[in-house]
């Protein structure tokens, strides 16, 4: 056993910072798209039209019951056969959004289903338009009640971004692989990267706690 020597890894900290930045960018982009897909998919499954419902349910089940890395390979290596060739980073964001959207839709669906019928009727009685009812009476309270589950899902999405290093996206794990090739200090680099991911997860959790207070101040009212 050799002593751990972090000097080679520290010397490449500029690469690591770039990797962290790319991880943050693709993860945040995927979270936004996953949320949009999740809301749309949840609304379509609850809308009642079975021609809309079945394809969406199939999408959710297929994504949830196949590995993320296979989805990434299908999008990056498989889609060119259908004439769609994507850059690694675009392929990564697309794969993460589709993957995250399937899980997010299940969470949001549960949130929407928890909204009482009386709430919607009250909105109608107050003369709100259907869109206003959906936005303020259904969606906002639904998101606020499932917010902790959404955060947990976003953390998993952040961690899953490491998988896209397999299609040579130079995010944090990909950068780690590169530095490993440069320094041959494999143990040191992956330990450092693990610590950085734990830090990113903690930062995301903290950021989401602040966001929750900003978006849903009514959850924190003193009664």
């Amino acid at each position: 056993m050799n002593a751990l020597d972090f000097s080679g890894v520290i010397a490449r900290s500029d690469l690591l910072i770039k990797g962290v930045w790319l991880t943050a960018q693709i993860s945040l982009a995927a979270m936004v798209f996953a949320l949009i897909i999740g809301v749309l998919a949840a609304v379509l499954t609850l809308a009642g039209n079975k021609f809309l419902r079945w394809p969406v349910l199939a999408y959710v089940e297929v994504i949830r019951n196949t590995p993320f890395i296979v989805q990434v390979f299908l999008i990056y290596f498989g889609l060119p056969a259908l004439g769609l060739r994507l850059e690694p980073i675009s392929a990564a964001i697309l794969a993460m959004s589709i993957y995250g959207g399937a899980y997010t839709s299940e969470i949001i669906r549960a949130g929407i289903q928890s909204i009482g019928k009386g709430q919607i009727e009250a909105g109608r009685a107050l003369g709100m338009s259907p869109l206003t009812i959906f936005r303020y009476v259904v969606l906002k309270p639904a998101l606020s009640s499932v917010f902790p589950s959404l955060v947990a899902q976003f953390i998993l999405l952040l961690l899953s971004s490491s998988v896209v290093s397999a299609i040579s996206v130079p995010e944090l794990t990909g950068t780690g692989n590169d530095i490993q090739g440069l320094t041959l200090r494999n143990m040191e680099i992956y330990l450092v990267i693990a610590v950085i991911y734990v830090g990113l997860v903690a930062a995301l959790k903290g950021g989401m706690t602040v966001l929750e207070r900003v978006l849903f101040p009514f959850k924190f009212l003193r009664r």
Partner: protein
Amino acid sequence: MFQQFSFNHVLFMLTGLGWTIGLAAIALVGGSIAGSVLTLMRVSSNPVLSRIAQFYIFVVQGTPLLVTLFIAYFGTTYLGFSIAPLTAIAVAFSFYAAAFLGDIWRGAIQSVPVGQREGAHALGLSRAHAMRYIIVPQAIRIATPPTVGFFVQLIKNTSLASVVGIVELTRTSQIVSNATFKPLEVYLTAALFYFLVCFPITLFSRSLERRLSA
């Protein structure tokens, strides 16, 4: 010259599927043993043990599985163990599974109503006996659906072992894809195999959940 994507390739991928399921099963067994220990530490009245378990769960759940696998893969050679990569990876999956199972099972134990514990104490049962005969049997009922659900996650996540060279379903698919240059067909086949294994287990987990809430 590229090969045609043939039935023999599919058979080769099926041998990979065997390893996928085997690795997931090993991780479930190993993870259950370590996960039980973690659960007991987490619910113990000793704050140090509880904190250690909490920290372990926080770190493992906060690290991408892929990075955990790299650490296990390089770590064993680094520490000078001469064990096969497959063994190192199986151990890493067990530690990974333990962190999630420990968390799921702690939740199950804590969701058993407090009155049950109090009743056991009132009847003169010791803490250990109350746990063994009153709390755990009820917690197992609560914990079964999410545990089965987590097994699906494990099966899917063994696909990451392909990155460190374990020849399971995803790795065999990569090999076939490189040989035939038919990535779309090959990875769709792989996805189908995963789906055929995972979806029934997902449905089983859901039916367990429904039976429990009924």
